[in-house]
């Protein structure tokens, strides 16, 4: 569990980061909390000749909340998410989800930016950000650009971010209505067997909008538009929830691992989504 030798860089600003990325291309990786990348390096599964630590760059650790949007800097930790009262008021699903990630020690180090940028299908924040229709801001040699979370993930560890770009912030429209982040895992610190992020708006007893995303049930997070659509216009009766679950099951593609075979994962995904929908509805 000892990584191959690497060069450690600790630039003071983003210009410094970008110039190292430009110089070394594929051979360089940025690191925020390091809780995904360093284990991969120790297993010698990730070969990173140039490691760029973002700790000293600054300007990426703020949580800004206004009437319509929430902007979370890439270096904001999971602990910061849990600890921020205003954020818990504006988007309580974030705290509910962050509390289900790993354990307190990891949450002090692990960042939102790292969690969403790494493209690990086991991470919880990508699905959550798809549910919330977040936008990721990346900066590269050609300046800044925004990528929708729902367009960001291509395959396991493959994202729309270019090798020479750095993810700097996540912007979320202030969520409306009821919420739930439901996760089944084998133990504290585990990735999800299945997890569901649900945000529902209710008006006069019927659902006017619903957003649903699933975690660790495909090689990317799955935003299931069809599952959300199945709820809209209904009073969330049993038939509607069944339709949403069925739509979600059509969108996911789990694989067998030590958590269990595909049939089990699909069954649990359905149960978890139903519970998430019911909890979100009760809060809507």
């Amino acid at each position: 569990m000892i990584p191959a030798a690497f060069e450690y860089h600790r630039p003071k600003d983003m210009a410094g980061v970008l110039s190292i990325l430009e110089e070394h291309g594929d051979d360089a990786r940025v690191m925020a909390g390091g809780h995904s990348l360093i284990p991969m390096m120790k297993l010698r599964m990730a070969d990173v000749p140039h490691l760029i630590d973002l700790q000293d760059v600054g300007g990426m650790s703020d949580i800004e909340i206004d009437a319509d949007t929430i902007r979370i800097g890439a270096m904001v930790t999971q602990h910061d998410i849990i600890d921020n009262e205003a954020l818990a008021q504006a988007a309580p699903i974030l705290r509910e989800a962050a509390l289900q990630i790993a354990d307190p020690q990891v949450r002090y180090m692990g960042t939102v930016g790292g969690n969403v940028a790494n493209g690990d299908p086991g991470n919880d924040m990508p699905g959550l950000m798809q549910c919330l229709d977040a936008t990721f801001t990346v900066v590269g040699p050609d300046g800044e650009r925004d990528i929708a979370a729902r367009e960001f993930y291509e395959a396991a560890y493959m994202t729309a971010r270019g090798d020479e770009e750095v993810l700097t912030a996540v912007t979320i429209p202030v969520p409306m209505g009821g919420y739930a982040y439901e996760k089944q895992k084998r133990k504290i610190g585990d990735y999800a067997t299945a997890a569901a992020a649900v945000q529902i708006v209710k008006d006069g007893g019927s659902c006017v909008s619903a957003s649903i995303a699933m975690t660790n049930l495909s090689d990317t997070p799955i935003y299931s538009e069809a599952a959300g659509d199945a709820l809209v216009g209904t009073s969330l009766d049993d038939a509607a929830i069944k339709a949403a679950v069925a739509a979600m099951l059509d969108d996911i593609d789990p694989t067998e691992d030590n958590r269990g075979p595909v049939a089990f994962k699909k069954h649990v995904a359905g149960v978890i989504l139903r519970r998430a929908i019911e909890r979100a509805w009760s809060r809507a």
Partner: protein
Amino acid sequence: MKDEVTSREERIENLKGMGCSRKRVEDARFTQGKGNYVDDIKLDGMLFGDFVRSPYAHAKIVNIDTSAALEVPGVLAVLTAKDLEPLGLHWMPTLAGDRQMVLADGKVLFQGQEVAFVVAVDRYAAADGIEAVEVEYEELEVLVDPFKAMKSDVVLRPDTVAEDGSPAAGAHGPRKHHNHIFTWEAGDKGPTFETIDNAEVVAEETMYYHRTHPCPLETCGCVASMDKVNGKLTLWGTFQAPHAIRTVVSLISGIEEHNIRVISPDIGGGFGNKVGAYPGYVCSVVASIVTGKPVKWIEDRMDNLMTTAFARDYHMTGRVSATREGKITGLHCHVTADHGGFDACADPTKFPAGFMNICTGSYDIPTAFLQVDGVYTNKAPGGVSYRCSFRVTEAVYFIERMIEVLAIELNMDAAELRRINFIKKEQFPYKAALGWEYDSGDYHTAWDKALKTVDYEGLRAEQAQRVEDFKAGKTRSLMGIGLSFFTEIVGAGPVKNCDILGLGMFDSCEIRIHPTGSAIARLGTISQGQGHATTFAQILASEIGLPADSITIEEGDTDTAPYGLGTYGSRSTPVAGAATAMAGRKIRAKAQMIAAYLLEVHDNDVEFDVDRFVVKGAPEKFKTMKEIAFAAYNQAIPGIEPGLEAVSYYDPPNMTYPFGAYICVMDIDVDTGLPEIRRFYALDDCGTRINPMIIEGQVHGGLTEALAVALGQEIAYDDMGNVKTGTLMDFFLPTAWEVPNYETDYTVTPSPHHPIGAKGVGESPHVGGVPCFSNAIQDAFRPFGNRHTNMPHDHWRIWKTANELGLHD
């Protein structure tokens, strides 16, 4: 004098002797990060060694090219089997009478096997060196299933085939097949089969006790330092049996035993994982001899999980017969034991399946027969006793499952079935059908207390209601009541029965009283977290009347400690604890003579009273042990040598048989497979209780490891022999979140043959806990037709049980 105004009760309290919850003296350093573990040892010029390990489970080694590795900066040497062969060290003896490759000799037999040993200036250079060693493998057919291995033409171990091509005899008799290791039998086959064949009721079941791993917090490691000037080898390591390691190192290296000093420093948990000898020890010693410098080897977590000493892996088939009223008449057990590539089980020599023949459990079973077949496969070697005496966890799981299955067969309550069959108090000492003589027990009292405490009848009523609610669609949760009554067999052991590699399993204690009335005691055991420095001082305090706080306990240095066989199988209290009490009594006997002299009376006219000798009938005339200690050194006493020291080597007349009654109440989410432990009640009877607080801590720890094993902890292999659970992401180690609240309770039935009546407790909760957790899960599904499902009961397997019973339709 202060003493005169102190009451007897206060004097007892001041000793902090047996029965008091004395705080652990070890914790001051452990909680401050001041422990001294093997990886804390840093010597001048120390090198670091680490292994090139096989990625394949079964492969021929075509070639090993070390040239590129030797070019890596900081790499000094790369050892292979070819380098060890001239020294006769490319293979080493195992504790089970087999041999094990130190470094791959022509082939590898399991994934992670040691292929080459890279020695470098630090562990970073060693890691780079490992990557640069080029090994050419030729893959061979992999056997991970012992039943297939017993039929396969593939020869795993060429040394199992005789010159004429037939299977050669092994260490424990003839082989049935070249991949077969031994057959071991206990009991009477004929009468047992006859009883079962003619019985009114027979329950049969096949169960697999999966492979798992003790996974101590600290992995295995050592530092070897050969001083070429004085010819002395010092070996620090995570050894549960330092003296045995010294003897083994001497026998295989040819270095005389007085020139070897083995030191076990603080050890971060053992649970059986640190009993055996590993290639890392041998390679470190050789590397130190070759380089003339100290060499450290420390496993990382993956090395530990994948290669050093697994536990269990028993395929068990049982038949139990009974009358219609539920009285058990016979028991038959057959085990196919998967030992991996080498038989490295840590069992007493005459017991290749450990004490599996305790599998009649706590029950009066008139006739029984056990047969165990050991088999080689392409898995890591081991077969250690993970927090239990030798294979007792397997035995107790087997009988506690068979009882449940028989209860189903009889349509009887499983608690009542146990009660009907318990060995009765008046039957002790009880001679069991498979040969053991149980020393003492009062099972009915313990069982009744347990059932009453949890309101067993009420729980069953609640469970019945839950089943109705479930069937009516009102809930998706089922309730399970797990029962377990266990009898352990610990304290190996009588030397006439028990040796390891010919070393008799006695243990020892040596005491020196200092002139000012404090003392040091050294033992042949070694704590790995059990708190010996606390509890052995308590035994001595009560025996010799000096405060526990004035007694230092020292273990683990073979240059200073008396010879002993170490700590595992709950043997420290039964064996070394007895030696401590006996040595203490020798001290007391001499102290009595000194006191009598000082008090100017006959020896028989003084008697021991807490912390002093008093003149019989005149308690105001006394000499405290402190005064006696001073006199022993500083006063010329006719006919008595100066000094106050004693040593005792204790060979126990029998094992001890702790027992207990455990009950678990669990709710199970049928749709997700999530179990939630609502209540866990553990009653332990470990005989005389030395330190109730430490007992409670041991019970909590053992139960938590039981929970782990029952609910998910396994070493799983795929068909290619790849380890699927090589990290703590997949290998289940419970955290505070997963652990329920435990209620502990006790009865006290002292051992009649142990000097202080103590039986040992460290492993009981694991032995009793595993079947209790498992039975709770199985019991929840009993109303729907479940008889038995195999552990580990992780979410998907529980879900699978529900699914197969049609509960998701």
